[in-house]
């Protein structure tokens, strides 16, 4: 069904536009937000706030739907266990995020803004993801 290709394309495009408009594709902006003890830039708090308002409504709507519009059944995370892997992984991610001011979405979106450097970041990120996947398989 074509909607199962169009819907994620629309979602990704809106996402990329929001990231670029909100300043998240600019590492200086992101690091400015994380620079809480220095010259703090609150812009990303507005980005998070805007996204939260819309998503809080979307979760309300979701409760009333028995199925999503273009797919059979919801496939949502249902884990509630707090693990060392969750915390440790998130800490590593946060360190990487702080170092370069990029997380996965803005890194990929920035491929059209700062192509060569964004490509280096995305390539390293994919290698990292592969390494994590391999280490999880062998453990």
């Amino acid at each position: 069904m074509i909607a199962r290709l169009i819907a994620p394309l629309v979602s990704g495009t809106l996402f990329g536009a929001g990231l670029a408009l909100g300043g998240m594709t600019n590492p200086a902006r992101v690091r400015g937000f994380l620079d809480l003890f220095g010259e703090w830039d609150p812009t990303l708090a507005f980005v998070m706030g805007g996204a939260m308002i819309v998503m809080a409504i979307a979760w309300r709507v979701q409760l009333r739907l028995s199925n999503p519009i273009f797919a059979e059944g919801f496939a949502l995370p249902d884990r509630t266990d707090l693990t060392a892997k969750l915390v440790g992984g998130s800490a590593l991610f946060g360190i990487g995020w702080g170092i370069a001011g990029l997380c996965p979405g803005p890194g990929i979106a920035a491929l059209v803004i700062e192509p060569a450097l964004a490509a280096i970041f995305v390539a390293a990120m994919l290698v990292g993801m592969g390494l994590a996947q391999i280490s999880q398989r062998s453990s």
Partner: protein
Amino acid sequence: MILPGFPDAAPLAGLVGGVLIGLAASVMLLGLGRIAGVSGIAARATGISGEGMPRSGAWMFVLGLPMGAAIVAGLSNGIEASFAGPVVLIVAGLLVGIGTRLGSGCTSGHGVCGVSRLSQRSLVATGTFMIAGIATVAVMNALGLDVLR
């Protein structure tokens, strides 16, 4: 619009950008029944992860990200961005890749989708990567490490 005390902040652009991100995640949730988590979807598209949405859909989402950014860049006079150099980006990229897989998500899946759902795991993950990011920037600044060009 200028925020008193923060002349460099862009609150209105940030808010509108955030609403677009929320709409994007809503399309994914209500349309396809899934979390718009970029790290998971990117791992799925590239085949690094075998779990998640159909790979064709994952690729469409990933392709949309730069398309959306290109539209904004086209409508405005380009987008400001100052990046770190290649070596720093490689180190950061590796950490982001490893961390998001081990931690099952990033700023989008945990930060936007999970926190707005009040998921306990996402609240812990988001708190952790926020603190780690803030601490990292604070330490780098204290050491005088200015990595952005």
